[in-house]
């Protein structure tokens, strides 16, 4: 058993703009089951952070409990991190974000952590449009407790033990759309070409960016009849569009055919390029996204790609009108301006 990854890296891989090589964004070697989809998502996060030249100390990774919530140990070991109580990651992130709005918040959760014990927390983080990336590593089962059906398991999906799920699954993307989330997408752990740019776009989005990533559980939910197995997902995948993300500092080098490409400018100057759009779908129209999702589901398909984005999203700090400076950087003088100011305020109530 290898506990350490060799320190050598490919000699032709160059440092990114902030001087880090890809392995600087890695964590310790994974202890999840070999072949777990979660490891691929970790890999996509590493790739996205390396390529967008994020300085590791400018990012905080937060998680709850579960296989998914173990993964922050396996990526970005130079970043801030908080492994919270089961289902409470959104609250911890809210607190951290309120105190220091300068960091990128990357929340990692699972289907149990989000759709069961943490549902109450999840929906309110959406409602408040907290500026964070919320990734659900969704495998449709409770892998850490031997693979019972989770709340997101599809109706009729066959478990490894052979039983059929009698309950309808919660569609987290559908729920997020219903709750007015400002960035909603679904991807598949086995499709990094799509997942990596989606994570980049989610990190650039000012507000709650929700990514539901189908991530097969190789040990308990990769059997025949399961709707979350590698082979089932691959056979039933349907994309809203081809997705690409162009950071604002990059020159666009790819030639896009204007007629088939939709370009969405993001708040920070970066842009999302969508090509080969699904018919009757507009990524800025929530209603069309809901329709697309239902159309795909009715065919038994897994719809991946960006569902919806609000390019004018305003996050919680805008809504509650906080000062520009992060709260944790405010000095004693700024926080407590003194008796004379208090008197002015008190006088205003008289």
């Amino acid at each position: 058993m290898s506990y350490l990854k060799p320190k050598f890296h490919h000699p032709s891989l160059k440092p990114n703009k902030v001087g880090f090589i890809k392995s600087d964004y890695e964590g310790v070697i994974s202890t999840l089951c070999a072949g777990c989809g979660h490891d691929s998502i970790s890999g996509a996060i590493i790739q996205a952070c390396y390529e967008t030249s994020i300085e590791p100390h400018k990012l905080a990774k937060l998680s709850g409990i579960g296989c998914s919530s173990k993964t922050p140990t396996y990526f970005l070991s130079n970043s801030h991190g908080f492994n919270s109580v089961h289902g409470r990651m959104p609250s911890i992130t809210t607190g951290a974000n309120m105190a220091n709005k300068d960091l990128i918040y990357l929340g990692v959760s699972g289907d149990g952590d989000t759709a069961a014990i943490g549902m109450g927390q999840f929906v309110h983080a959406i409602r408040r449009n907290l500026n964070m990336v919320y990734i659900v590593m969704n495998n449709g089962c409770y892998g850490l407790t031997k693979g019972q059906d989770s709340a997101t398991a599809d109706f009729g999906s066959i478990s490894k033990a052979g039983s059929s799920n009698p309950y309808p699954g919660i569609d987290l993307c559908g729920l997020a759309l219903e709750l007015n989330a400002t960035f909603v997408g679904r991807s598949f752990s086995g499709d990094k070409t799509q997942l990596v740019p989606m994570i980049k776009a989610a990190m650039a989005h000012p507000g709650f960016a929700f990514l539901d990533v189908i991530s097969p559980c190789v040990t308990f939910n990769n059997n025949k009849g399961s709707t979350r197995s590698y082979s089932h997902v691959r056979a039933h995948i349907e994309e809203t569009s081809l997705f690409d993300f162009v950071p604002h500092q990059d020159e666009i080098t790819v030639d896009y055919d204007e007629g088939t490409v939709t370009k969405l400018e993001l708040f920070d100057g970066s842009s999302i390029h969508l090509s080969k759009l699904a018919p009757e779908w507009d990524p800025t129209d929530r209603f069309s996204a809901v329709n697309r999702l239902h159309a795909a589901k009715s065919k038994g398909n897994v719809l991946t790609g960006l569902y919806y984005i609000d390019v004018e999203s305003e996050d919680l700090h805008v809504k509650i009108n906080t000062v520009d400076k992060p709260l944790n950087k405010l000095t004693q003088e700024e926080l407590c301006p003194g008796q004379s100011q208090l008197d002015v305020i008190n006088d205003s109530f008289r």
Partner: protein
Amino acid sequence: MKPTNIKDPEYFHKVVDCQYACPAHTPVPEYIRLIAAQKYTEAFMINWESNVFPGVLGRTCDRPCEPACRRGRVEEEPVAICRLKRVAADNKGEVKHLMPQAPFPSNGKKVALIGGGPASLTAARDLAPLGYELHLYDEWGKGGGMMRTQIPAFRLPEAVLDEEVNFVLDMGIHTHFNTFVDSMKEILDKDYDAVFVGTGAPKGRSLEIEGYEEAKDNIHIGIEFLASVAFEHKESVGKKVIVLGGGNTAMDCCRTSKRLGGKEVTVVVRSPRQDMKASPWEIEDAEREDIIIHNNMPPKRFVVENGKLKGVIFGKVRAEYDENGKRKLIPTGEPDMMIEADDVIVAIGQDNAFPWIEKDIGIEFGKWNVPVLDKVTFQSTLDKVFFGGDAAFGPENVITAVAHGHQAAVSIDLFCSGKSVNERLAPMTNLISQKMGIHEWTYDNHIESDLRYLVPHEDKNISLKDRKVEVELGFDLGIGFKEAQRCLNCDVQTVFTEDLCIECDACVDVCPTDCITFTNNGEEQDLRSRLNAPAENMTQDLYVSDTLLTTRVMIKDEDVCLHCGLCSERCPTEAWDMVKYLYNTTKTYTKNGKGDCC
């Protein structure tokens, strides 16, 4: 690209860079693992079977394996393979009983071996166990050839050489020492079934420029000088010595001079330093002994005063290279330089010489006076005569001579059995999975980050006083172990089985050097540009799988794979396995005589 044919024995052989680069294809990682396991005797025997002179080569090999070593591509310095070989040789236990035991039942055939160097001795070792009556002729009183006459004792102690030469001679070889063969016709008349010529390149080039005639008493040919020192015919040189030439012989000559009384020993090379043929470590060793090396100075004439050599006048040049890389030495116009000398040693190259082979007996010679040979079988135009070593294609090195000896022995055996020399057996190969448990391997797959260890040297004050004191001391067991751990086990191959792959990407994510990519197939050039890490080293192959379920293919760039086995450890379906690949070149000799080695 088409799926890689891993059944082709050469595919995985090429991945084992060191073994592939070795002319004799010694299974390097296999014996390095044995050294790490303190099994020095076994490590020695693997070497002995493959290269016959582990102790000699562990000190003096040209080491084509080291520049090829994968470690040099992921880090700066390759594994010190040569020094590790010496660790095995120095620490081996009793080995004689592990070798074929003479006398061997006769097969009734007689073979003459002309020359007692590494090529002839290798052929002898390979043929003796098969029952051949072998007659070995050499002009000197002992076997070993250039290993004895041209490699100084401070690099190769006589005891080491004697031991390894005797392992062969003790197999019942009929030796005819102190016998200079001066006629091939006489040998052919003696009714041998085959003749092997391993007479080396015994003719050192001389330099007959102005002043040579008057000064020739103090002008020596490099290899002749070394031979006369080795046989103790020459025991001193003048105080001021100039060595002409930039190859390994020049390095040996200058260092030998330093030990025979030379105080001011200078090496003068006409070409720039980067063009010197000497191995970098031999140049370093010479400079460590305070020998001055001048470059870009071709000799113009010998200066003679009162009928005695006074020195040499050198011109000054600079090198220019045309677009084909061809070098021209252009005079710089600087004034000539005179260097004083009591003795001059000329080490500017050596040639083949076959004055003893009659021109009319059917052996054809080509350009540079080398025999016309088949490159695989070493057979000459006279079907019963085979050549090997420096005698075959011009001066090379010991390990190349050994490789020739093996192949010539195969040809001789086929020829004497009445078979075609072209019907050679394929190399013996074997693939063995190294899996012991879910995450357990039979080899140590942890990759050490250690840098290459330096070998300790004898104190200069001691070694310069006695030409028989060995300079390099070799690794002790502790350093030997650490250096052995730097080996990446490139012979433990990553073998991919398409049918088992579920394309979960686990291998892609875990690979520390980003070797693995799953993508759509394409032409090689196109593929090389769009892998996870660009595959720019064209000398290294891409391992391409058959089409997978998603219509993609798995592509692995072999270039900087660490063979750490993490892809296999993280694979849920065992689509990746770590499989040890043993490759043994075809030889007539094997331990149990059944073509099954090790």
